[in-house]
């Protein structure tokens, strides 16, 4: 549905996007993940024909953004980071205006407006001035605007930024609900959002892909490498002390590293990393019990996307700095 090849966007002095290639299949929800200023918005703006690429090509539904921008625009719904609203308009008036702009035939217009109002749960606010709406409802009107012409591709730039937790959950559910009919690209710098809403993830940093596009599970599995286990030991009268406990855990076969996390209220918490493919939980439990200590907790730690992300971007940065110095 979306095909990007060697996309580069250069501004006067900076390179915002540097030689990015990826593909998105029909019906997927793809998370576009990266820190602020990574080039997410720029890539999205190229896809929506707002900006022309400096080099490379981008195709949406088989149409090139430079060659046939009108065809591309017809098939895209776009919610920029700040919803493009006219505060002096009423919600229904605004949606009707956008619908006309997107080329919805007059006969379908009021039906479509009613449909998106219902879908985005803004039916009760139909006759309100947009300037009187709260941030969350403005975001919903922005989303309604993006889906009004039932586009094949939906591009959402940080759709949950600036919302309160309840609104974030509602917006995510709304996006998930749209998934079947539309191909969705959403950008975010919040990792849990990708984990919760997206099937695929594209990680971008400093204008480059930090990892090849992949499913969220694959990426987690591939980068996990070693298993990581959290161990909590209870102490009685200061026995064992942290150093002794750490030494004992390190002796367990298959353990590569023991990281002391915290110790308080007579509890010692360690994170134990094992060598790849060596299950160590049983050995750890036996070691602790045999030493006569009481084991409070033993649980595998899933390597969060957060960690993966930090790892990927950190190595990237080291490489970049090395080159610059």
């Amino acid at each position: 549905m979306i095909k990007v090849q060697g996309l580069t966007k250069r501004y006067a002095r900076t390179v915002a996007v540097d030689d990015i290639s990826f593909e998105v299949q029909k019906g997927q929800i793809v998370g576009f993940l990266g820190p602020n200023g990574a080039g997410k918005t720029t890539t999205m703006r190229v896809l929506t024909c707002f900006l022309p690429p400096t080099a490379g090509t981008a195709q949406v539904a088989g149409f090139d953004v430079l060659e046939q921008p009108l065809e591309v625009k017809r098939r895209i719904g776009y919610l920029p980071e700040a919803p493009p609203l006219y505060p002096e308009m009423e919600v229904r008036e605004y949606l009707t205006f956008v619908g006309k702009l997107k080329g919805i035939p007059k006969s379908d217009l009021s039906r479509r407006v009613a449909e998106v109002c219902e879908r985005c749960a803004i039916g009760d606010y139909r006759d309100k001035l947009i300037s009187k709406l709260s941030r969350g409802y403005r975001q919903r009107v922005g989303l309604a605007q993006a889906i009004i012409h039932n586009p094949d591709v939906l591009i959402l730039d940080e759709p949950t930024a600036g919302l309160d937790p309840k609104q974030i959950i509602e917006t995510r559910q709304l996006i998930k609900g749209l998934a079947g009919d539309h191909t969705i690209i959403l950008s975010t710098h919040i990792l849990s959002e990708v984990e919760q809403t997206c099937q695929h993830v594209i990680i971008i940093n400093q204008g480059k892909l930090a990892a090849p596009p992949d499913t969220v599970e694959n990426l987690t599995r591939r980068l996990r490498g070693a298993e990581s286990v959290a161990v909590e030991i209870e102490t009685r009268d200061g026995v064992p002390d942290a150093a002794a406990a750490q030494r004992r855990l390190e002796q367990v076969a298959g353990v590569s590293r023991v990281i002391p996390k915290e110790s308080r209220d007579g509890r010692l918490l360690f994170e134990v990393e094992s060598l790849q493919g060596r299950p160590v939980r049983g050995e750890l439990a036996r070691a602790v019990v045999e030493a006569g200590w009481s084991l409070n907790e033993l649980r595998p730690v899933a390597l969060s996307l957060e960690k993966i992300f930090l790892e990927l971007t950190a190595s990237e940065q080291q490489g970049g700095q090395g080159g610059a110095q």
Partner: protein
Amino acid sequence: MRNILTIYRKELKGYFASWVGYVVIAFFAVIFGYFFYVATAIFVNQSFQSQMMGRGFPMDMNEWVIRPLMMNVSVIGLFVIPMITMRLFAEEKRSGTIELLMTSPVRDLEIVLGKWLAATTFYACVLLISALDLIFLFVYGPPDWKPILVAYLGLLLQGGCLLALGTFISSLTRNQIIAAGGTFAACLLLWVFEWVTAYETSSWARVVSYLSVLTHFEPFAKGLLDSKDVIFYLSAIFLGLFLTTRSMESLRWRA
């Protein structure tokens, strides 16, 4: 065509949905009302005097009231037009709604035309206020209506040309104040260009003077419809709209 109409309706509504439209109309109504009062007062005064001097025939209302008034309106226009055009693009750029327009299946030219047509229609509404005052002249001694019609056509053409310029300047900035200030300065320059012929008669002075929008309005005020002036205004409108479309395009490349 439908897209132009969509943009046009939205913009025209925008003038009346915000205070800008009403302020501009009020501003114009007050100033024109004052000019109208002074012009008629002088006319009445002078008619009395000429009757006392023993000249029997009445003075020409078209020449003594309407022509100077129309020249005044064209000058008031220079002040009104920046207020009308300042928001057209600058506001959309500031609020980010320009992204909606530019990512919708609409051509740049359609956006520009819709906006300019709305501005011109609104300016026509403003001019209509002055027609309300002129109705009184028809009650008390009918002037010739044909020169008045020509004068209004001239005002509309002159306005359209300055509005196109203002639209262009508004597309260059995201700050409405700068857009208004720039448009006002440009309008003022185009007005005073005619002064150079007062001290220079060389060919460049005549070219500069020819660019003055006021030189081309004078025949209209007299009730003269000259194709030379009509073509001047039409080509100026075309140039302004062309530049605006180009400026929108460059927005994509610079952004």
